[in-house]
């Protein structure tokens, strides 16, 4: 079926995949807000949300309804278009990252091979970086367009934090990419299936990546753009209703996606050790893969929350010191050591 030089089956397949993955991301983000409140409650020895539905399971829906029905306010001297564009950009950038993540192996649908991944591009991880760096615009535009000093200060903080930690994040990934020799996320996962996960080769790289991911998602201890006691409420101070909801929501989606990236890059993605390489039926393998990946992601999200409710916030100069004077030199050293071992291995472990 080829009209207009297009493979329509491919188009429909990808459209369905995109719809499923976007709605799944939104659903996961919805229940991450619930999980966050429950985890906070457990850590603070209180019951947490338990009124709406059994065990409070309908709480996120109630929260969403509350946000939608609130009055939408655009401040008089705000820049109207950019004020609306800000949360939209933040949300778009958060959702676009999931395009290159492999969610499972290949399945058969009506004789067609369907990869459980929207796009397997050979620059996968760089694409993630590009989209993440676009996310900064959502914060900056929103903060500036609000025409509020506190919003502007928070936006500038957020942007400089994101740029500073992107550097260390990129350097920590270069060491990993030197080992894998590929930028495609699917190839990176397939190299780990049936072998040792990358975390064994790159423990320091993972640590740097994880800390930078915390900073990129504006999570405690790096939540300076939202530091209430210094900046009232941060870059989304003037926002209300669903526009505020978009900002808060994009944070949770970012958390979900960065957990997925970490699981994919360092913890084998959809690989279950000793099992995945022996599954012959592609359907079963796909289901097992998705469940395994989701379990890993949930564990990372829990780690994010655990850190948030345990560790206090950094001061701004400490944040910058950590990023520029500790993370980047550490990542560079990690890169050198990795390069040394790769050369040694190519030389059959002789000097």
């Amino acid at each position, binding site marked *: 079926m080829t009209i207009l030089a297009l493979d329509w089956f491919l188009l429909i397949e990808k459209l369905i995949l995109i719809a499923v993955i976007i709605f799944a991301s939104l659903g996961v983000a919805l229940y991450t807000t619930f999980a966050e409140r429950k985890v906070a409650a457990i850590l603070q020895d209180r019951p947490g949300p338990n009124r709406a539905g059994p065990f409070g399971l309908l709480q996120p829906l109630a929260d969403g309804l509350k946000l939608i029905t609130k009055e939408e306010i655009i401040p008089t001297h705000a820049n109207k278009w950019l004020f609306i564009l800000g949360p939209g950009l933040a949300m778009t950038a958060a959702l676009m990252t999931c395009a290159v993540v492999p969610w499972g192996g290949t399945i058969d649908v009506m004789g067609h091979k369907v990869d459980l991944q929207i796009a397997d*591009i050979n*620059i996968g991880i*760089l694409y993630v970086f590009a989209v993440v760096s676009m996310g*900064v615009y959502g914060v*900056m535009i929103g903060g*500036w367009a609000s025409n509020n000093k506190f919003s502007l200060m928070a*936006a500038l903080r957020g942007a400089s934090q994101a740029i500073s930690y992107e550097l260390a994040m990129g350097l920590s990934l270069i060491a990993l990419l030197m080992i894998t020799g590929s930028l495609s996320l699917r190839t990176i996962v397939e190299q780990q299936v049936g072998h040792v996960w990358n975390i064994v080769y790159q423990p320091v790289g993972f640590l740097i990546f994880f800390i930078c991911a915390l900073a990129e998602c504006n999570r405690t201890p790096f939540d300076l753009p939202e530091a209430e006691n210094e900046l009232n409420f941060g870059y989304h101070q003037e926002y209300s209703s669903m526009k505020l909801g978009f900002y808060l929501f994009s944070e949770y989606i970012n958390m979900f996606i960065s957990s997925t990236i970490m699981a994919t890059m360092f913890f084998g993605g959809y690989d279950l050790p000793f099992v995945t390489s022996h599954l012959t039926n592609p359907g079963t393998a796909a289901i097992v893969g998705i469940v395994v990946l989701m379990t890993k992601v949930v564990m990372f999200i829990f780690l994010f929350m655990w850190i948030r409710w345990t560790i206090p916030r950094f001061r701004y100069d400490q944040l910058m010191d950590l990023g520029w004077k500790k993370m980047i030199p550490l990542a560079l050293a990690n890169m050198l050591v990795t390069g040394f071992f790769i050369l040694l291995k190519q030389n059959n472990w002789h000097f």
Partner: protein
Amino acid sequence: MAITHIIFWFLTALALVSALMVLLSKNPVYSVLWLVAVFFAISGHYILLNAQFLAIVNMIVYAGAIMVLFLFVIMLMNLDKETEPQKDIWMKIAGAVSGGCLLMMFIALVKQATEMTGKTALLKTGSIGLIENLGKALFSDYVVPFEISSVLFLSAMVGAVVIGKK
């Protein structure tokens, strides 16, 4: 009309309109945002030429980092429609004349490039833009210029630190 042609014309129109809007916007923040749109359109062209690495690096470096710093400066100085200094009429005329000279030079160059007539860009083929080939070219054929340019960057960084310390 194949799908690549449609995408090509769409991206071209987007790039030209955005580039015009960079100049025509009164508000500097809008100019920066339109410039980001230009970079996006050009990245799209790179992808059409199968130069995926160039496309994504263009987005990370220019749209993602340099333009954010531009936005930083503009926001910190709080430049806006009202506060932007208006140039006097002679400056505008001088700018138009020098810009026109540059345009004429470009047109003359394009007209002189006879070996390019009747040729179209290699769409979806060619592999020099892929990261593997680009890396090999940079680190074998062009290793000396590549390393010298990195020294240039280093000196720029040192210079920035020295100025910052004063």
